[in-house]
């Protein structure tokens, strides 16, 4: 196809990668936004989710937030924030939207992970005289780690996707290459931008899959032992609210 060849040429042209509208600068903006927003959302959502999971309350809240996150269009929130009084404060509308949409997967997965941590192990740990804090740190968190990481991964992919959409109301990031292509009716540029965005999303997903495997505190102790089998199966969709925008 002609467009594919032209998109390739677009990507191979050095001048498209340099300057304030170039790929490197846009990629930098995208990664910066992703990193900052993911960090903020983790700092907000994970402590709440772990605390709720530990005391076993608020399950309905976790599920409802995740459902609401699915029903509310990211694009609408981005535009609403832009038109609100916050809209004049530079990047803040984008950052707030990104954080809002990263929180549901983090909250739900971490809650489920801690709440569903093997009750027998938790009881045994309590019987050994562990305090609440010790229980969270040494038992529930390690057991919940795979699901927490699933949440972080989903949130990261979500942030990358939402940051792309932020280009529509004029935010930075790789999405700008796509929207600029649309404005110039330059389909090869649109496709080239889309390839860049899709690659970034896949790389981010891949990096977090690897991080999850490498950092798993249970990995060395049990390998593929019984704990692995006890993880909730990924098939049961309610617990894995992966979503893209």
């Amino acid at each position: 196809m002609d467009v594919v060849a032209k998109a390739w040429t677009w990507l191979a042209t050095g001048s498209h990668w340099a300057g304030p509208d170039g790929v490197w600068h846009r990629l930098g903006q995208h990664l910066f936004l992703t990193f900052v927003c993911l960090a903020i959302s983790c700092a907000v959502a994970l402590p709440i989710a772990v605390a709720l999971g530990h005391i076993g309350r608020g399950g309905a809240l976790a599920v409802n937030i995740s459902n609401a996150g699915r029903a509310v269009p990211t694009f609408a929130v981005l535009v609403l924030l832009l038109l609100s009084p916050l809209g004049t404060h530079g990047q803040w509308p984008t950052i707030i939207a990104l954080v809002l949409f990263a929180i549901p997967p983090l909250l739900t997965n971490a809650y489920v992970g801690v709440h569903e941590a093997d009750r027998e192990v938790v009881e045994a740990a309590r019987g050994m005289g562990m305090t609440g804090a010790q229980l969270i740190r040494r038992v529930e968190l390690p057991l919940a780690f795979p699901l927490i990481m699933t949440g972080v991964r989903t949130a990261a992919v979500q942030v990358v996707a939402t940051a792309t959409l932020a280009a529509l109301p004029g935010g930075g990031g790789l999405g700008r290459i796509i929207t600029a292509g649309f404005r110039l009716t330059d389909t090869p540029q649109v496709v080239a931008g889309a390839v860049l965005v899709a690659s970034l999303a896949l790389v981010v997903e891949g990096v977090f899959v690897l991080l999850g495997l490498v950092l798993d505190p249970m990995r060395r102790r049990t390998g593929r032992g019984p704990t692995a089998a006890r993880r909730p199966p990924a098939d049961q969709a309610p617990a894995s609210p992966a979503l893209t925008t």
Partner: protein
Amino acid sequence: MADGNCLISNEWICGEYVRTRGQELTDATLEHVGITLASVAIGLLVAFPLALLARRWRPVAGPVLGLTTILYTVPSLAMFSLLLPVFGVSAAVVITGLVLYSLTILVRNIMAGLASVPEEAREAARGMGYGPLRLLFGVELPLALPALMAGLRITTVSTVSLTTVGAIIGYGGLGNLIYEGMRSFFKAEVLTASVLCVALAVVADLLLLGLQRLLTPWARKSRKGTT
């Protein structure tokens, strides 16, 4: 509040806007519903054979699930942009993109539903002389319905919300109004379209929940069956 002035003072909530642009709102809502319905229906039609295929030939299951997961990772703006050269500027771009997204959850949930059918039920049906097709549609599918419907609800709700991004090529239903309102800083248009969009998602979800209750009357008493 003087209704006539809210258009001029650009307020968020404006009855005058709804009254004067009623037709535009209706058209956008209908387009939104149409795109969503088409996407979810085609998604189901594609996902069902895929799930059956993946169940029959185990080696296919891994690649099918892997590929749909990868598709799900692609951001929507990029997905629509990548499909643009294939279909040109048309609703097909948005619908195809949404179908590809819907496959992830639909295939998974249909497979999970079929896997949850008790072997005894299958044996009993075979003993009664059910052929493979009748077994599938008469026994397995009804028993897999709770999981299937759960997947369908998730898919429908996210499809309603993702349709808005179709505005980039002018086929986004209510998203078109949001896009237009964004460019002209028209607050009432953006808010009204956004609220309608969320309402659409909620209504669709409730309708599907009702449908599920109707289709699985046996699950009403003991709620353990619902996934």
